[in-house]
């Protein structure tokens, strides 16, 4: 097989004329992936916590609503959801708002749609973890809280949630890893994150193997960094006496 390996290609200036190198492109992609994933993760945590709590409350309307939320976001493919946010949502908004969105910078449009999409998609999964964390607590904890005269919201805030949050750190780690991987789907609407930069590198450099190997390694590194970070969190918050605890 006659293939000319050329790893030096990353240090060459890009064909677009400005003085950035192809390595700079990769770093921009990496930054976009990280920025997108972290911002979506923050929203997903907050929203997921609220929806997860609502799924466990003794009110049929609230828990039914939360269940519907989770089912909708879990049963539609991520790509379809992304296209719905990017192509359909601006058409369904009130006209002023929709037009304002369509006239904004294309990068802002892509980023906002991607962020909302990833955040809501992940929030449904976070909600499931929060729910199973709360349900895994012994029922005595809730009863004890109520018996001490706490209201139900107070029992959640001071008794159940502090425990549940610490118990669900390990499953949340895998959701956190997933959000970085899922962000690659956003390359389909033209957002220049890591995977999209990889494709662009192939087109510009004609060195497909180097480009794809570099991008794949970047994802592996990202994975390792997130995993070690979350391992640190896990060790610091684990509950003594539980599996994996001290």
């Amino acid at each position, binding site marked *: *097989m006659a293939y000319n390996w050329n790893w030096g290609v990353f240090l060459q200036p890009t064909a677009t004329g400005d003085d950035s190198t192809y390595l700079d492109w990769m770093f921009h992609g990496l930054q976009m992936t990280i920025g997108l994933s972290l911002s979506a993760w923050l929203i997903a945590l907050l929203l997921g916590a609220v929806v997860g709590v609502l799924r466990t409350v003794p009110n049929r309307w609230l828990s039914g609503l939360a269940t519907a939320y989770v089912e909708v976001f879990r*049963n539609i493919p991520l790509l*379809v959801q992304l296209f719905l946010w990017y192509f*359909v949502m601006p058409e*369904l908004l009130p006209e002023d708002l929709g037009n304002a969105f369509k006239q904004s910078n294309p990068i802002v449009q892509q980023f906002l749609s991607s962020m909302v999409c990833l955040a809501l998609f992940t929030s449904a999964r976070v909600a499931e973890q929060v729910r199973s964390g709360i349900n895994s607590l012994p029922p005595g904890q809730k009863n004890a809280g109520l018996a001490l005269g706490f209201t139900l919201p107070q029992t959640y805030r001071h008794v159940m949630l502090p425990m549940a949050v610490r118990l669900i750190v390990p499953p949340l780690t895998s959701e956190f*890893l997933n959000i970085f991987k899922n962000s*690659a789907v956003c390359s389909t609407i033209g957002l220049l994150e890591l995977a999209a930069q990889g494709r662009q590198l192939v087109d510009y450099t004609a060195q497909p193997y180097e480009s794809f190997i570099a991008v*794949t390694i970047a994802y*592996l590194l990202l994975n390792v960094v997130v995993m070690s970070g979350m391992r640190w969190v896990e060790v610091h918050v684990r509950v003594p006496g539980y599996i994996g605890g001290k």
Partner: protein
Amino acid sequence: MHEFDWSSIPNALPFLWDGMKISLEITLSAVIFGIVWGTLLALMRLSSITPLSWFAAGYVNLFRAVPLVMVLLWFFLIVPHLLESLFGLPRGTDMRLTSAIAGFALFEAAYYSEIIRAGIQSVPKGQMAAASALGMTYGQAMRLVVLPQAFRNMVPLLLTQGIILFQDTSLVYVSALADFFGAAYKVGDRDGRLVELLLFAGAVYFVLCFAASRVVRHYQNKMKTA
């Protein structure tokens, strides 16, 4: 506000159904190959032969760390060229469907192998010991005693993973292969009715996946009481 016009959907139904057949074909083949290859990976991972278990661990961790989109791009952009130059195939042979199935099968096998490994480990150790005491070899004990029980417990998880895989097949969009979602997008783009077609596609996926997950849950509950 957008004015809806659903009239382009009825005429496009045969085309959309062709797309759905491709989605289902990819899902089914990837589930079958994924489970077979995933079982082998799980057995390798649990085996006492160190190089085999390292290979399986490396394989599983690699595929689980990389986004599916990235794996599919490898299989659409790089692997066909590699095969062309290795086997001297004519340039531009359309291998997209085969590539898609291979990519999904190899990717999902990593996830299946983790489910299957947990399933094998959930079978009580005494089963293996009893089989050995009856004079079975390791292979016989695995095949006749441990795996059948493991798979019985795993069926709901394997099916749920199949539903996730069905949703993920929409990502063949990156190769412009006309699966159900690709077909819906093409029709919407052609008729200027993207909003309607995307909503329709979302609704179809929702109904199918929701119904399928209900069936799995029903089966799971029946298993618990049995």
